[in-house]
């Protein structure tokens, strides 16, 4: 029996598992490693210090805009659709909906705080891209918050909607790669450019950048809403595809 909310919180953190909690840290280390590699590669090939610094800032921006959001989305998809004792839990007085919402809130909170910390460190160490220094503090937050929450919302909603975490993670992965592979298609379409997830990484912020971020954020909130609604359908939580 869990007697206090702190015990409950500890229990849920345990359920989240080390890999879900560690994944953002591992991803940050990978991107940092690649950024350092890019920095030294640029210097080694005769690039100026400014050019090498610019390449490293792009790596850090990529971490904030596409690396951590994908990791968070995958973790959310796995978490929301994986509970081996869901059948038992559905018989408890404590609703499964509340438990799953708490877990989603925890993973969202953890990845948001971690991404905020990374953003602060990037800015403090002088690796915030020069082109973004005209943005207001709120815009600097929306920059990474919009794709982060979009991936979390999409991962959770798709996992419940399709009742398959592997389908959800596959779609997230393909959406992620599609942003690069079909970039021109996205940017040339007036509709698709408003939902292009990695717009900040383009050289020179386009006039619709803020609208893009706000639309993505709105979609993310709508996806959270869909997730919460789906969690209320107990029968839909049983018998996921294996």
């Amino acid at each position: 029996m869990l007697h206090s909310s702190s015990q409950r919180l500890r229990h849920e953190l345990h359920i989240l598992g080390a890999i879900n909690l560690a994944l953002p840290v591992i991803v940050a280390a990978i991107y940092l490693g690649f950024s350092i590699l890019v920095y030294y590669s640029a210097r080694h090939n005769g690039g100026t210090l400014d050019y090498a610094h610019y390449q490293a800032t792009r790596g850090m921006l990529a971490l904030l805009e596409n690396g951590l959001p994908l990791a968070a989305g995958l973790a959310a998809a796995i978490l929301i659709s994986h509970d081996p004792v869901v059948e038992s839990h559905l018989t408890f007085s404590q609703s499964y909906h509340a438990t799953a919402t708490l877990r989603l809130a925890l993973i969202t909170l953890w990845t948001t705080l971690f991404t905020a910390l990374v953003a602060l460190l990037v800015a403090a160490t002088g690796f915030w891209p020069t082109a973004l220094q005209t943005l207001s503090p709120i815009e600097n937050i929306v920059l990474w918050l919009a794709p982060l929450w979009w991936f979390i919302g999409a991962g959770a909603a798709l996992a419940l909607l399709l009742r398959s975490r592997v389908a959800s993670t596959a779609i997230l992965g393909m959406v992620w790669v599609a942003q690069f592979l079909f970039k021109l298609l996205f940017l040339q379409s007036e509709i698709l450019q408003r939902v292009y997830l990695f717009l900040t990484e383009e050289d020179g912020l386009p006039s619709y950048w803020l609208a893009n971020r706000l639309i993505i954020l709105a979609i993310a909130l709508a996806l959270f809403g869909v997730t919460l609604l789906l969690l209320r359908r107990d029968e839909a939580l049983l018998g996921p595809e294996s």
Partner: protein
Amino acid sequence: MAVRFTIQPTRLVSSSPASVPLISGLRAFWGSLRYEFWMQARRYSLWIVFALLAAFVLRNFDSLLSDPFITSARQASFRWATLVAEFFPLGAGLLMADRFTRDRATHMAELLDVTAATPLGRLLGKYLGATLATLVPIFLVYLVGVVLIAAHWADLSVFLPALGAFAATTVVGVLFVSAFSIACTTVMWPLLYQFLFVGYWFWGNLLNPKVGIPTLNGTILTPDGHFVLAGFFSPPPGVVLGYGQASSPLIALESLGALLSCAAPAVLAAWVWLRWQAAHQ
């Protein structure tokens, strides 16, 4: 909407004498291949993922047909083959990432371990069966594109080279990534593998090899198979996606050999690992 499968142990196990390991292995391989094929082919998620992807890609198919570099149905089919090979094996690799871990999650692995079905036969059967099933929806999407190309150019002779192009690119790519999806998830958390796999796909296929960090893109280990396609079919410059690297039949053979000879040791290494694990349990 839950998908239920009725396991037929007699097909997989069909007890052959343990003293004839080759026959036992072949039976396990064939039984596992058939079972895994149908199990994967019946998954809703497989079809949903590729249907969504197909809707997105085919909606913008006009841009391929109106490309100024493309002047024939044959060339259009080569471009279509490289586009499919650059994107669809990614989904295949991600969808394959839970095939091995599923047996552990459902405790089927323990049950099968006590049968006469050899672990190597089961593993190879799982790999090939699930991979072939994953190729089915990809092939159907590809076929729709080839039909559109044939209709646009009024050229029915395009089907044969299009089939060859599909085998040279997507089939090789899917065989390559599926081997690692099966092998890596025997030792790695699937979540971590999936993230690393998406990152690898971007790094190894989409990064420009001429600038920035070193990448496998542009080497014979590029899994989208454009070296194989360009080497065997010699399309004009600009038709096959990539960064303009030259190819030849010899380079095509090298690329094919390199990709497949990486896939085989990956599966075998997984088998060695599983044997070691079983011996130390």
